[in-house]
C-alpha cells in the first residue's frame, strides 16, 4: 500500500481510471481517520496516543495496484475541488437518460402539436381561397366535399 501526498494521489488515481477504461474496476474507499500508526494492543495500555479528529483516509485500487492518502482539514478544500473534477471527468461511461428525458418529450410534443396545427390549417386554407372565388352555395358544397 503506497501512501502518497494528496496531489500525487490524484495523479495516480487519474492513471488508475485511464488504465481501467477497457476492463476492470476502480475501487475507492473513504473512511474517517484518527491518525493512529500502531495497532491497538489487545491488553496493556495504549501508548500515549491522542486521536486526531480532522483527518480522513482515502484509498484507491484497481485490484492490483493500491494507493492511499490522508486528507486533513487544512487540505480538504483544495483537494475536494480537484477530486470532484477528477471523478466527474473520469466517470463518463454511463448511460444518458433518454427515456425519461424531459426536453426530448417537450420537443416531441411541440413537433406533434405543430404538425397537428398544420394539418388542421391545410384543409381550412384550401377551403378559404375557394369561397371568395365561387358563389356561396357551390363553395359550401366544395367545403363539405373537402371535409
Amino acid at each position, binding site marked *: 500500500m503506497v501512501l502518497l501526498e494528496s496531489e500525487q494521489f490524484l495523479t495516480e488515481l487519474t492513471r488508475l481510471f485511464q488504465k481501467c477504461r477497457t476492463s476492470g474496476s476502480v475501487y475507492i474507499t473513504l473512511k474517517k481517520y484518527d491518525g493512529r500508526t500502531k495497532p491497538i494492543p489487545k491488553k496493556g495500555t495504549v501508548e500515549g496516543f491522542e486521536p486526531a479528529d480532522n483527518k480522513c483516509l482515502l484509498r484507491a485500487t484497481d485490484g492490483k495496484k493500491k494507493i492511499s492518502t490522508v486528507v486533513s482539514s487544512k487540505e480538504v478544500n483544495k483537494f475536494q475541488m480537484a477530486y470532484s473534477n477528477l471523478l466527474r471527468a473520469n466517470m463518463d*461511461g*454511463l448511460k444518458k437518460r433518454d427515456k425519461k428525458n424531459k426536453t426530448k418529450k417537450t420537443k416531441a410534443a411541440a413537433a406533434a402539436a405543430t404538425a397537428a396545427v398544420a394539418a388542421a390549417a391545410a384543409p381550412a386554407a384550401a377551403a378559404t381561397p375557394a369561397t371568395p372565388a365561387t358563389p356561396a352555395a357551390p363553395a359550401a358544397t366544395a367545403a363539405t366535399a373537402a371535409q
Partner: protein
Amino acid sequence: MPQYQTWEEFSRAAQKLYLADPMKARVVLKYRHSDGNLCVKVTDDLVCLVYKTEQAQDVKKIEKFHSQLMRLMVAKESRNVTMETE
C-alpha cells in the same frame, strides 16, 4: 444487505449510518467503465447499504455525496482539541 432503488433513500440512510458511529463507517465506490456502471456502498461492518446505477446523472449526486462525507469526516467536532502539528 439492503440495496436501494432510489438515491434519496440511500443518501438518508447512509448519512444516518455514518453519524451513528463516524469511526466505524466507511464508503466504498466501485466504477467499471467497461460495463458502464457505478456502485456505492456504505457500511459499518454490521449493516451494509448499497446503491447501484448506470445513469450518468447519478455521477454528480454520488460525487457530491462523497465530498459531503469527506467534509464531515474532516470537520473538527469541538474546538478544544489540541492542534496536532504534523
